[in-house]
């Protein structure tokens, strides 16, 4: 019963949040000077006054902003995200075309960062003041502090140019035929973007895991486990790590939005054909329906992600279940 109430409550909050996202974003985009017609004109190398007026009228940009907002929200409630001004295609279609690429990148980077982060954290917690622990910390912080595009270009120079192991750009080799070779090609193209995006989050997860492990390793039941003669390996993996994980999982859930925004840069550097690249292009082009559509979807993904994290924690951590 309590579970359903929480679910209903969270869903309602989520919907209100989505409406707020729509209205706020619409207003913000409209506050910025210039509109899509400027970029269409720029793309064409200049345009006449008649053409500019004609395009504005076609897209309804000559109407008052409040009318445009009303029209837009009304259409979204009918599950219609509109047509892209710039590409002349339905926004929903464009988003669904790119969503798989972004999800693939985001999930693989997240998993990569979690696995590496947790391993490093556990390792560092064994000897918190050892030299190796400091090296791990330094390495992780470096990944966190370095700008993504810089890490990306550096990896490209190292592993595409100097040691040509990976391709520079794109998601698949167009000359490859067949399902398995293509999947392999996608995996091959995925490596560098995944490393780049993952590198930011390794630091977060490893630091948190280290701290959490240190706390757990000092607790009574670990001492008991050691006292009853369990091997250090069993103590760490079976007793300590299990209890050190919940904070890391929570953080990973909350970081989801950060991973998505990190993907924008990574996708641009590696020409990864995902939502991030589309977002950047449409923001620069003031392609309002596309920007709003992407923000709407991102908000949706984050809300659902947080909801799932919430529910997950309730399942794996009995202590959370008690608090409504």
């Amino acid at each position: 019963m309590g579970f359903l109430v929480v679910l209903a409550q969270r869903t309602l909050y989520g919907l209100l949040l989505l409406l707020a996202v729509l209205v706020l974003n619409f207003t913000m985009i409209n506050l910025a000077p210039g509109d899509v017609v400027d970029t269409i004109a720029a793309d064409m190398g200049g345009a006449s006054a008649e053409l500019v007026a004609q395009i504005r009228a076609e897209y309804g940009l000559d109407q008052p902003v409040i009318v445009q907002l009303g029209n837009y929200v009304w259409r979204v409630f009918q599950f219609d995200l509109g047509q892209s001004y710039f590409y002349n295609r339905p926004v929903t279609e464009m988003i669904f075309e790119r969503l798989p690429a972004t999800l693939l990148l985001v999930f693989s980077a997240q998993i990569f960062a979690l696995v590496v982060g947790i391993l490093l954290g556990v390792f560092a917690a064994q000897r918190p003041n050892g030299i190796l622990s400091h090296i791990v910390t330094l390495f992780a912080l470096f990944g966190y502090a370095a700008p993504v595009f810089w890490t990306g270009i550096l990896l490209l120079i190292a592993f595409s140019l100097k040691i040509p192991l990976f391709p520079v750009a794109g998601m698949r080799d167009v000359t490859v035929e067949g399902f398995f070779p293509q999947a392999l090609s996608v995996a091959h193209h995925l490596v560098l973007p995944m490393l780049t995006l993952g590198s930011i989050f390794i630091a977060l997860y490893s630091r948190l895991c280290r701290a959490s492990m240190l706390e757990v390793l000092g607790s009574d039941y670990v001492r008991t486990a050691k006292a009853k003669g369990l091997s250090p390996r069993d103590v760490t993996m079976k007793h300590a790590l299990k209890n050190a994980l919940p904070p890391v999982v929570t953080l990973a859930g909350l970081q989801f939005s950060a991973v998505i925004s990190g993907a924008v840069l990574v996708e641009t550097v590696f020409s990864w054909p995902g939502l991030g690249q589309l977002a950047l292009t449409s923001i620069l082009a003031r392609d309002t329906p596309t920007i709003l559509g992407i923000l709407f979807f991102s908000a949706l993904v984050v809300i659902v992600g947080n909801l799932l994290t919430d529910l997950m924690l309730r399942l794996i951590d009995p202590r959370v279940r008690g608090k409504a």
Partner: protein
Amino acid sequence: MKIAVLRRLAVAAGIAALLSSTVVAEEPVRGGTLITTLPQTPRHLNPAVQSGIVTGAPGAQLFAAPLRYDEDWTPQPYLAESWAWSDDGLSMTLNLVQGATFHDGEPITSEDVAFSVETIKANHPFKTMFGVVEAVETPDDHTAVLKLSQPHPALLLAMSSQLMPIIPKHIYGDGQDPKSHPRNGQDVVGSGPFKFVEFTADQQVILERNDDFFIEGRPYLDRIVYRIIKDASARAIGMENGELHMTTFENTVRNIKRMSENDDLVATDEGYAAIGPINWLAFNTGSDGPLADKRVRQAIAYAIDKNFILNAIMLGLSQESKTGIHPGSPLYYPDVNGYDLDIDKANALLDEAGYEKGADGIRFSLTIDHGNPTTKPQAEFTKASLAKVGIDVTVNSFVDFPTWANKISNHDFDMTWDTVFNWGDPVIGVHRTYDSQNIKEGVIWSNTQQYANERIDELMAAAGQEIDPDKRAALYKEFQEILADDLPVYWTNTLPYHTIYNKKVGNPPLGIWSSSSPYDLVFLKE
């Protein structure tokens, strides 16, 4: 194979051939896939209703045009095997190649030419190209006659692939709006050397050989893949590791320098004369401030060291441009004042204009914008340069293109760095900047300087109608002389556009239209 050919040549020509560095034109080879790039995703692939280089590049492969151009601006037959002006310059007759077909097998007729001209005239942003075409007559399937309301020499350059693709009437004439026609980006049926295979936004455009192309034996390539890579460094790395064969319109000087040092690659600035990109500092001459006085504008030009821009900012990769016509154009007139650095003269001109230095050493204050992030160094250099002659400059930071365009096109600025393209004939891309009739609020790259000079208007009207090339050049000479003195904008250099190609690529597109010319001659060695 290649070595064998060389050996035979060497034997035939004897030692003389070895001593002289005579270039032996290599025999083109059939087959292969050319991997090249686009720096952004085109809106679609139909240049009839969309200008710009990213549509023009694949567009020129998909669609043939009446004429084509090589390096020296001489029109060559293409879809039109011959063409002729009438004596009064009021009509242009095109005789089309016999037996040419669209990619779906339908014949290309004069009806399609007429339809293409009408579509372009109604939908293309460059109204001056076909604005004076009153009708296109089609006496038979292979003859099209363009009837003009006045002589219009710009038509010759407008009849190239970038600006006048011949599109099929039976596809685009179905009553839908050609600007948003579904066949602009998918299932494109063209008339050019390559056929449409795939267009995926932010990934690639793939084209394949048109086996029924109207020029026998061409094209040489089997396929062209345009990979859409927005990051200039990623493109450079792709060229260096051999993943890409060729990249065009590169303009980040450090990447060009790096690529040019690679032994497998050739970097050249040939091929950009028609598109004609010029960097300039624009003045809002219509404002009430000091910039309305031409002496102030001249003083600013004298105070900025053009050589610093050419050598330090552009690393010597761009050419000096003293006027608004690209230095690669036969109409460019270089013997005008180039405003070489002269601080004393700048100070004298400012004093003469009545702007004495104040107690703090400052005469007046101005703002400067820069139209894209790449001109930021120029904007900062301008600030430092003008400080030396007592002009205080504030650099406005660049937000994004629409913000800048909105500001400039509504005449809300003092000075701005900008890049504007010639687009072939001056009538198409040059006149718009200086025409007093083209001062239009809200339209970027109109006469945003609000410059008005009757004589300039007269000269443009006359040159626009002058069929005789020598007389025309004389009119543009006077035009450039007056502008160089009035200085509504201070032209400094061409954009350092470069084509970088792997030595494997034969016949790279180095004609005046660069990647917007047909690739039917391009081949891959080996």
